[in-house]
């Protein structure tokens, strides 16, 4: 059992983007399967270099500095606090980029952020969110606060998931219930 204190829940809730599904009560047990389908579709979409958030297309290209680091060339990087430092090609820092490719822009370095996708269930629907704070950083302020590098991996505010990432989960629930599933976005 994992203990989560109030602070964690508060932080988590900030990242949550909620999809509320109005489905018949007898079908609520199917939420878990529908959530798994949706989580997979979201991660697949991101790994193909596309944003799963409505109104957003492909992720913007990596910066020249980041590309240089991937290629194993000298590059400037910055700490999460924004302090610049030069990466030595011989340093351990480059180990992180081993096997990383320039394309697609798949938001995967260690893979921890995408693995942190989770679902939370209620009587009325389910919520898909990322427990990793990076998801919110990439979606709102960009890495290192660079607005030009914002890559929407999770909807925030009034944004919604793309129909393309909802459709399979929705279809699954509709097939199971033989009733139309209504999707609603509720702002937290």
């Amino acid at each position, binding site marked *: 059992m994992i203990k989560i204190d109030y602070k964690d829940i508060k932080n988590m809730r900030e990242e949550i983007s909620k999809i509320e599904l109005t489905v018949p009560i007898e079908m609520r047990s199917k939420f878990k399967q529908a959530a798994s389908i949706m989580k997979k579709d979201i991660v697949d979409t991101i790994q193909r*270099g596309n944003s799963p958030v409505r109104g957003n297309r*492909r992720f913007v290209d990596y910066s020249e500095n980041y590309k240089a680091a991937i290629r194993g060339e000298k590059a400037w990087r910055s700490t999460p606090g924004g302090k610049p430092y030069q990466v030595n090609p011989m340093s351990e820092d480059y180990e992180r980029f081993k096997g990383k490719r320039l*394309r*697609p822009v798949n938001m995967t370095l260690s893979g921890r952020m995408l693995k942190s996708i989770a679902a939370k269930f209620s009587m009325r629907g389910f919520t898909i969110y990322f427990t990793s704070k990076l998801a919110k950083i990439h979606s709102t302020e960009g890495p290192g606060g660079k607005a030009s590098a914002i890559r929407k991996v999770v909807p925030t505010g009034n944004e919604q998931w*793309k*129909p393309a990432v909802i459709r399979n989960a929705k279809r699954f629930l509709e097939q199971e219930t033989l009733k139309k599933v209504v999707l609603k976005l509720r702002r937290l």
Partner: protein
Amino acid sequence: MLIDLILENTAKLKSSVSGGKWKKTLSPEYKKQKKKVAPGVPNMELTGDMLDALTFKPYRDGIEVGVFDREEALKAENHNKFTAKSRKTKVPERQFIPRKDQKFKKEILTELKTLAKEVVDDQD
């Protein structure tokens, strides 16, 4: 949605065009070059510029989907074989946009119809 579905099929190495061709292999030289920056599969993404340029333009009776950037449009034309000139090039045929005599795949059209219906139902 249409662009998302085209990009999804492209990533899955599938044509989005009904009866469209998709050459499944890369030439050994190109594969070697491509593997340095991207997966060595024909997913139409080396620099990503062409797929980034895939977009739509609304017009009175609908939308037009295509690659409108001049430089990227040439790449798209050669892969989709829109013109007689492009059919003569050695660029392998991988169709992601239908020619005038073609249509998108049935599953894509069905998804679009479902979405359009939902939008109309929502407004009612």
